[in-house]
């Protein structure tokens, strides 16, 4: 039905660093999603390999965010199945997705506005903090140790994303670009196996985009995190992704390396708005 290119081990794309790709980590199989009368996704199938950077692109309204929301457990598809690490999930709850190691950032930024940057990123460690209620209240020994240990981990992420100077600023006061970075930090704090990024570069200028690209690639490189991202900037997509899925009106119209996709007739038509 669609091209499933075999990527030679170690082969990269133009601009993308050499990277060893693993086996398939996520399979999306014939997923269909509708809201009332509106179809968001229609029989979409593709796979994601471990350690790769997979881009989902398409014109506005193609269903890209909905796809990510399904992968996150936020929306339940009417049809189709998602398999993560071999485990099938039907009706997965967002909490379970988080537990399984899937992290996420959002198009419209879903930070906790009442809290500082540090606190926001610390919430990302929630799954890893276990000390019970009474120890927390007394803040003795084990609870204190746990807090410090996770603070240390969070500080590393803060260093990595270069946001030390705004540690104690309430996130509501930060400019858009920095908020996106903080959101990325929070997702990273979960130490996810799979990271879903919804338009991480949206609304940024060239310099900010370059920074963000650098961070995304470093995350993929350094931590081996598999990345699925939605992005509109073709330059970025061509530059950093290993493979690309193209959606249009909720259907998949192309799937392959950036080069293959760039030359695909259907993709060009979709973006140029040819009637179909």
């Amino acid at each position, binding site marked *: 039905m669609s091209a499933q290119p075999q990527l030679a081990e170690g082969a990269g794309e133009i601009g993308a660093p050499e990277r060893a790709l693993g086996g398939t980590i996520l399979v999306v199989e014939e997923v269909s999603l509708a*809201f009332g009368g509106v179809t968001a996704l229609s029989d979409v199938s593709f796979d994601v390999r471990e350690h790769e950077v997979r881009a989902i692109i398409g014109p506005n309204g193609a269903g890209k965010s909905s796809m990510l*929301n399904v992968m996150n457990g*936020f929306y339940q598809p009417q049809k189709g199945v998602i398999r993560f690490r071999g485990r099938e999930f039907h009706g997965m709850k967002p909490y379970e997705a988080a537990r399984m190691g899937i992290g996420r950032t*959002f198009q*419209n930024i*879903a930070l906790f506005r009442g809290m500082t940057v540090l606190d926001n990123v610390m919430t990302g460690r929630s799954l890893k903090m276990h000390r019970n209620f009474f120890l927390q209240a007394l803040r003795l020994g084990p609870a204190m140790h746990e807090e410090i240990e996770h603070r240390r981990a969070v500080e590393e992420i803060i260093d990595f994303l270069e946001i030390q100077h705004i540690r104690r600023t309430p996130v509501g006061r930060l400019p858009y670009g920095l908020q996106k970075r903080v959101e990325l930090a929070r997702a990273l704090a979960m130490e996810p196996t799979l990271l879903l990024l919804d338009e991480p570069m949206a609304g940024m200028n060239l310099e900010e985009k370059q920074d963000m690209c650098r961070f995304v690639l470093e995350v993929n490189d350094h931590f081996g995190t598999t990345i699925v991202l939605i992005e509109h900037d073709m330059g970025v997509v061509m530059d950093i992704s290993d493979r690309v899925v193209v959606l249009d009106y909720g259907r998949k119209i192309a799937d392959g390396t950036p080069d293959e996709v760039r030359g695909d007739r259907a993709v060009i038509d979709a973006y140029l708005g040819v009637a179909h």
Partner: protein
Amino acid sequence: MMHLLYSIFVDPFVQMGAAPDLLAQTLWEGLVSGILYSLIALGFVLIFKASGVFNFAQGIMVVFSALTLVGLNEHGVPAYLALAITLVVMLGLAFAVERVILRPLVNQPEIILFMATFGLTYFLIGVGELIFGGDPKVMISDQLRLPSGSYRIPMAGGYVQMQKIDIAATVIASLMVAALAILFNRTRIGRALRAVADSHRAALSVGISLEQIWVIVWFAAGVVALATGIMWGARSNVSFALQIIALKALPVLILGGFTSIPGAIIGGIIIGVGEKMGEFYWGPLFGSGIESWLAYVIALVFLLFRPQGLFGERIIERL
């Protein structure tokens, strides 16, 4: 155990069937108090629809308007003139509220505006008591030519007694609802009101004057409050205790939705009837006085099945 189950699930219905005249009486009483609840809820809905503010002071506005009417009359002002003056007072109150509370707080989150109406409540309680004194007063039903006395309708071995004032209340409430429905849906002003309810910013950007709309809406709510005060005061006295009754409007709003006028009526009737039936037929099981919380529990149970209320819009969360 069986006895308990029997007395909860079977016995009340047996009682209902055994004395249909009592059943009819209870239903009627429930309907009437339900209509009055819906009138209070209507005031809430008006203000919420147009300004997004949950007006906690609606209850005290009911009392305050009734007190003004009665107080003026006590000082010798003829009934209908007093009515006119009270309407002017409520208009003045609407202006004052818009100027002093709504305008300075225009972009604040809803809870702040809600708290401001708390402040308004305390203010009106204090002013009302200072001017009119704290004693309960008698509504000037005669002077207003409101019907008194009652009809007795024979039924199934007994009779049902319907107070004429209650029938009048039902009629007046229906007229009011019809008038408001027409106002909202058919007039230019109504469209502006709905626009403001949706988004202040968008309404401003198409040139709708928020201030004007708010004054209109608070005045309308004031008129509804006055009507409620008159009706309620005619059945029992006008006192500050009435203010707490306004809280009963909350379950009504939950059932009917916060922005639906027909919802307020239907919700009111359901709560009124449910409450009266519950108190009469199931009350003795628990000991008396379950009316004080039954309405809330009814609303709560409804919410568990439909978290957006009966008429509310389904909340679709988007991220």
